[in-house]
């Protein structure tokens, strides 16, 4: 095991409000790391700092560094960074103007790749990878938004995979889904860790416990505790962590 991402003294702001305070966190390669904490604790901001999406928001600011394979991503072209670190959002957001097939390879198409055969092959590959192929193979030319919520979210994961990232960030990917779709998604995430390093934000502690190898607990912009998931849930070291996982606040 080696460290894929190293977050060093990371601070984040929205306007005047500091939402991340001196975060230090190492993320293991080919593992699933969950970030938990009550709403407003900065967990979404943290994950958005890892592929430089935070700075896209007007008024947002970041200080500190995030190393990907020991290279500071804040010293590189953000576009290149986001190719290597994919993201899946809270709500499924397939492109409404594109078909299922086009959505799956949207990243490639948008970069100007025109080769239809290559695109079709890649689309099939990633749609299969997210276990969607059998469900949508006859609807590949329908708009991406015509699928069910769970299917849309898996399509969005396929879309992220098609760019061939090394890391996959997921910001509460199941929060808009029903229980059955959530289960399927969790199985998929578990599958994906063989090839990708995954960071998942969730407000659902059971979900974190089920899927992740490591868990970080954030509270009011500070990293309170970070360890092996089993350990964190069974033997929390910090009093705040214990109170949170036992459901006494948040």
């Amino acid at each position, binding site marked *: 095991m080696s460290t894929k991402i190293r977050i060093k003294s990371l601070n984040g702001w929205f306007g005047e409000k500091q939402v991340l305070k001196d975060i230090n966190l190492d993320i293991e390669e080919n593992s699933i790391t969950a970030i938990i904490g009550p709403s407003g604790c900065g967990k979404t901001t943290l994950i958005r700092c890892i592929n430089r999406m935070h700075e896209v928001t007007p008024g947002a600011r970041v200080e500190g560094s995030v190393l990907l394979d020991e290279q500071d991503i804040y010293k590189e072209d953000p*576009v290149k960074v986001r190719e290597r670190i*994919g993201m899946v959002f809270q709500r499924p*957001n397939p*492109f409404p*103007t594109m078909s299922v097939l086009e959505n799956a390879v949207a990243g490639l198409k*948008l970069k100007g790749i025109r080769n239809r055969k290559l695109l079709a092959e890649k689309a099939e590959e990633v749609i299969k990878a997210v276990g969607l192929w059998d469900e949508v193979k006859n609807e590949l030319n329908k708009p991406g938004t015509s699928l069910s919520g769970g299917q849309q979210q898996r399509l969005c994961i396929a879309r992220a995979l098609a760019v061939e990232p090394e890391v996959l960030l997921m910001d509460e990917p199941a929060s808009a889904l029903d229980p059955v779709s959530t289960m399927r998604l969790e199985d998929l995430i578990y599958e994906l860790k063989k090839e990708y390093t995954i960071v998942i934000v969730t407000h659902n502690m059971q979900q974190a416990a089920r899927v992740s190898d490591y868990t970080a607990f954030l509270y009011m912009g500070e990293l309170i505790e970070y360890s092996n998931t089993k350990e964190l849930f069974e033997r929390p070291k910090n009093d705040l962590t214990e109170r949170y996982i036992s459901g006494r606040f948040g």
Partner: protein
Amino acid sequence: MTSLGVRRIKGYLMLILVAVAFIIIMIPLISMLYMIIKEGIGILSWEFLTALPKPPGEAGGGIGNAIQGSLMMVALASMISIPISIFAAMYISEYGGKLSTITEFIAEVLSGTPSIIAGIFIYTLIVLRIGFSALAGALALSVLMIPTVTIASYESLKAVPRSIREAAIALGVPKWRASLFVILRSAMVGIGTGVILGVARIFGETAPLLFTALGNMYWNEGLLEPTAALPLLIYNYATSPYKSWQTQAWGAALVLLVIVLLLNIGVRIIARKR
């Protein structure tokens, strides 16, 4: 405190009053549509739509050159205005900052410019140099079209959900590609609506053409020649003392109205489908 009965009666009276207000507004509309159809329909024929005008007094003649001139100038004005407006709107919606605020403000101010101002502006700037021409007419129409299409475009672009923008950026797509191929494409229905309404508006504009396109009794033979236009012809014929021309003015008005209303209704159908 007045009794409930009295208050109710007052309420009914007021209902009648507001309904009457609506009916009063409808009277001129109905009268206009009735007159245009009644006076205009008799003269419609293939010859009327395609032939050149004849001198007053002579029977026959048509508005072919005016339709040609209008189509030409509206097409040229659209070609000038649409790219300028869309790219300006993309700056406003995608980048923000001072230049965006200023551009948005200027677009709003310009959209209220009286159309006759566009005419004298292009007269002093262009006509005095190259003469009365289709080009000058198209430029005057552009002055009116650019602000309206810009406003419609940035309103549509701003309405594209954040999540769609972020999805594109998170794929590692350069911002300009995301803007052009995802955001612009998502806003296309709204922008298209704005463009069509803009076209419908300039199709009927007369004042900007009075001292730019000038008018012409013959076919237009080039962008640098004076040219006829449907609204100009209606104005000239309506204010002429000749009965035959006045009748043709109604016919031309019917043609113009059908074009403008078709564009307006078409837009509604597109917008409703979405």
